[in-house]
């Protein structure tokens, strides 16, 4: 793990206009590190959808990005309501998002499917009333 770089961000849950700041900061760091453009783009999309999810559904959370020689791993952890039915949440178009989320340009049930689509691997660890941790990995 000595060659790994770990980035940590608190994602505020109360300000929709700031959603995406952690993703922008991650993108800038990966650019400085000289990672390939297509990798940075995929990480940015996954991280941004994850960040939006945390803001929309869970009143924020914590994002940890680990850049190792062979992968970029994003862990998006919240203490929100949890996901009662993960299979449904993974279906494109299924959503519990609020009208406010839709006003943002999100909340149409595309977030988790999009994250999976652009990741090499993704796992969802969730418990109702406890929170959700999404781990997404993009191989280098």
């Amino acid at each position, binding site marked *: 793990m000595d060659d790994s770089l770990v980035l940590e961000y608190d994602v505020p849950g109360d300000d929709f206009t700031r959603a995406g700041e952690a993703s922008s900061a991650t*993108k800038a760091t990966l650019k400085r590190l000289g990672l390939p453009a297509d990798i940075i783009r995929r990480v940015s999309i996954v991280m941004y959808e994850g960040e939006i999810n945390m803001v929309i559904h869970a009143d924020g959370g914590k994002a940890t990005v680990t850049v190792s020689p062979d992968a970029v791993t994003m862990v998006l952890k919240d203490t929100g309501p949890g996901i009662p039915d993960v299979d449904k949440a993974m279906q494109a178009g299924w959503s519990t998002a609020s009208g406010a989320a839709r006003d943002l340009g999100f909340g149409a049930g595309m977030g988790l499917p999009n994250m999976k689509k652009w990741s090499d691997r993704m796992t969802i660890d969730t418990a109702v009333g406890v929170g959700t941790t999404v781990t997404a990995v993009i191989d280098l």
Partner: protein
Amino acid sequence: MQIRKIRELLNAELLCGEEMLDDEVSYGFGADLMSDALAHTDSDTLLLTGLCNPQAIRTADMLDIAHVVFVRGKRPDEGMLRLARESGICVLATRCTMFKACGLLYGAGLSGGELHG
């Protein structure tokens, strides 16, 4: 298609990124749902949207999209334009509807690209 030509076709106002008027884009993508843009666009794309909030600019930035047109007379505020400048994004605004803006550009030869997956 050159951004300068896009501005003319849409009778659009340039709100920031004057130095990018000679840039070229290969594709156009129109959406108010940012998740659709995040699912289906290439970086070499003009994003047309009626979603007038910071997430439209943020989405473009995540996608390495450098040119955004706000349709239906939507006007981004100064905070959004500041974010666009910081992200190196050229912003235009037109009174055309989404349908008309996309139609004008497609008719003039801008490709729609393909869905990803």
